[in-house]
């Protein structure tokens, strides 16, 4: 029987849409190309027991996927570099049931009011399509509130002086602050900045049948062994408990069949490698801002904005070394404090913009964090007779503290996702090719705010600091590579009211297709400087409620 909706992708966007629709009585089929390590295979309404504190499994051996050997991506900085300069991992978000929600460390800030109206508030930038969103913060706020309760977010109302208004408090108080964050927050406050407890989708108390986080430290890039993280486990278990949803893992959708202005079916390849077709009344695409345009392109959809305006958050990384401290960044939830000051215009930012010949510049959310686990540290330590002592001294882990600024990428039409002409996945389909490089705005913002962050580390007592970025721009810095490390992928199927300049409408519906909805961060018009998860989840909830004719709870 044809379900009411086929949802492609089981990450935060797809699982949110599934939960809202099944709650409203719809039947859905969720097709996920990755494996199921999130839900108990014997009872999909319960969590699985596959995740663990295992650096080899999650970091070295691609447990959450994608494996770059069978699902590579191609990369180049610009068309002038030829077909590609790199094949392998590029912005890889997990390919698994639960998608990107499984590996995230759970920082889920809301955007602010001005983030939805960048053109109106700040004006244009050369070379970038800086536009307003077709909706306001006020329109999205009820959905932010609903999804914060659905996934479970810990935070403190009023902690961030720059935050947008809220209709209610966070569902949970913040968890324990990490020692390094206590120190870096104090230093930041001395320099006039405003650090606060990061809104975090990790339970600070037992919540919704899941336990409180026990601070194991294996958070970023790991699945949570005790399911204290607000990954899609809560949404998917509720969805499947309705009896109106079917989860098809290891199922790759290769094409949406389109006739005229309607999707009629999807072609998919199951775990046995056989291609089949399922009729569709409605298709919700939630593969993320790289896989979603890839699928739409594989399906023959044509639009001048499809695949364009890729944004990843240009990351500014400042690191400080503290010879006299042991900061134990492996204890706690990876990041417990952040600050928004780099998103706020002040005289220094205006001067930096003027110096760079820009009308304005914005940085991004600054995360206070430590770095790494021992294998990661060992890879950056010397081999030979000094190795053991270097690891024991732990100058590259236990004595380091860092700020990572998720710098706002502007939407440049030249940063794109398209289909590689020559590289294939193991199933034989063209992989996504990413063409990306930062613009003048990103570089100027990084230079300006990097200096401020270095000053904070010096105030904290660092005996030396370093400032780098991802992607590396000098190609001589620490880990410098032109391939961005950010796992925030945004844009590529932007929303808008004008079908000529946007791919989807204000509800996520593809303008040219009456029954295809995009429910992930592809639809973002601008990237703000905040992790995209909560906003994409709120948008997915809004789109699903609109379909079902229901209101947020």
């Amino acid at each position, binding site marked *: 029987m044809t379900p009411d909706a086929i949802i492609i992708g089981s990450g935060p966007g797809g699982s949110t849409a599934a939960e809202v629709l099944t709650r409203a009585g719809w039947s859905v089929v969720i097709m996920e190309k990755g494996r199921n390590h999130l839900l108990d295979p014997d009872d999909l309404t319960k969590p699985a027991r596959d995740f663990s504190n295992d650096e080899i499994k999650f970091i070295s051996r691609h447990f959450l996927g994608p494996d770059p*050997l069978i699902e590579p991506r191609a990369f180049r900085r610009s068309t002038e570099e030829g077909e590609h300069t790199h094949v392998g991992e590029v912005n890889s978000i997990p390919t698994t049931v639960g998608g990107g929600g499984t590996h995230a460390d759970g920082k889920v800030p809301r955007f602010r009011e001005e983030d939805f109206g960048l053109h109106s508030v700040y004006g244009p930038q050369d070379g970038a399509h800086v536009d307003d969103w077709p909706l306001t913060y006020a329109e999205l706020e009820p959905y932010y509130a609903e999804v914060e309760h659905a996934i479970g977010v810990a935070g403190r109302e009023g902690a961030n002086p720059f935050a947008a208004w809220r209709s209610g408090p966070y569902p949970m108080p913040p968890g324990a602050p990490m020692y390094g964050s206590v120190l870096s927050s104090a230093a930041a406050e001395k320099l006039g900045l405003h650090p606060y407890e990061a809104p975090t989708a990790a339970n600070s108390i037992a919540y919704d049948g899941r336990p409180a986080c026990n601070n194991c430290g294996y958070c970023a890039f790991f699945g949570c062994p005790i399911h204290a993280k607000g990954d899609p486990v809560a949404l998917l278990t509720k969805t499947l408990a309705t009896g109106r949803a079917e989860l098809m893992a290891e199922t790759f959708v290769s094409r949406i069949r389109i006739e005229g202005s309607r999707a009629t079916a999807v072609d998919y390849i199951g775990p046995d490698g056989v291609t089949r077709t399922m009729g569709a009344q409605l298709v919700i695409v939630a593969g993320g801002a790289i896989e979603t345009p890839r699928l739409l392109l594989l399906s023959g959809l044509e639009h001048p904005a499809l695949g364009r305006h890729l944004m990843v958050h240009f990351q500014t990384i400042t690191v400080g070394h503290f010879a006299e401290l042991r900061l134990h960044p492996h204890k*706690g939830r990876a990041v417990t404090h952040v600050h928004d000051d780099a998103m706020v215009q002040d005289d220094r930012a205006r001067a930096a913009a003027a110096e760079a010949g820009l009308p304005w510049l914005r940085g991004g959310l600054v995360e206070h964090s430590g770095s790494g686990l021992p294998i990661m540290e060992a890879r950056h330590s010397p081999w030979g007779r000094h190795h053991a002592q270097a690891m024991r001294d732990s100058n590259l882990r236990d004595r380091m503290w860092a700020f990572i600024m998720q710098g706002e990428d502007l939407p440049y039409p030249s940063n794109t996702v398209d289909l590689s002409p020559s590289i294939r996945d193991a199933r034989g389909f063209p992989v996504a090719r990413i063409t990306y490089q930062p613009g003048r705005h990103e570089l100027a913002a990084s230079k300006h705010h990097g200096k401020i962050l270095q000053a904070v580390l010096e105030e904290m007592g660092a005996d030396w600091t370093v400032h780098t970025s991802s992607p590396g721009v000098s190609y001589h810095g620490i880990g410098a590579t032109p391939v961005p490390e950010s796992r925030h992928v945004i844009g590529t199927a932007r929303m808008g009211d004008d079908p000529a300049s946007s791919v989807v409408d204000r509800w996520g519906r593809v303008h040219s297709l009456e029954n295809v909805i995009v429910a992930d961060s592809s639809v973002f018009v601008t990237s703000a400087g905040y992790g995209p998860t909560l906003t994409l989840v709120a948008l997915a909830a809004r789109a699903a409620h609109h379909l079902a004719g229901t209101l947020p709870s």
Partner: protein
Amino acid sequence: MARYVGPVPVWLSEGEFASLRAACSEMMPSDQGAPGAEEAGVADYIDILLGAFTFNPPRIWAGGPTSGRMGGEARFATFHRLSRLDELAWRMRIEGSQGIPEREFNGPVIGLQERYRRGLAALGDDFVPVDGKERRRRLRADPEFCELLHGHCCEGMYGAPEYGGNRNMVGWDYIGFKGDVQPVGYSDVEVSGP
């Protein structure tokens, strides 16, 4: 039983394994009370990876959610089964494409087995008896192999013991790292205090 305690080498020849042990010991030597690759069984880790498909299920991904070291069941020792595509990926990575069309959709792939066999051969038949200075010179003469070996040494020294290295957790103990800590985790006091 946490760590693999079967016979080694699993995949390498005895001669290759002896060279591998010597090479790993240059990377991470025992020194003044510090455990090195030899004490941690780093060569075992690498050999077990190269021979992962001699086990059923293949020793690629340890199980979860707990190892039993801090309580809970000792589930790390039960390795995950691989899907069809997982197996394809890991056979490509370890065995290489070997001219098999299914593995060459983006061209030939040289696997870890061949890279190790070539790299160890290039170190010379007399690699074990030569002195440390000469061993290090030969290792540095092949930067690509050196980088590969270093990465695996790091994993074998500081990864979970179930993969064959970090014997008796000597790698973790020496640097004061507890390793996997579920189901206990850390207390709020441990997180927030010095």
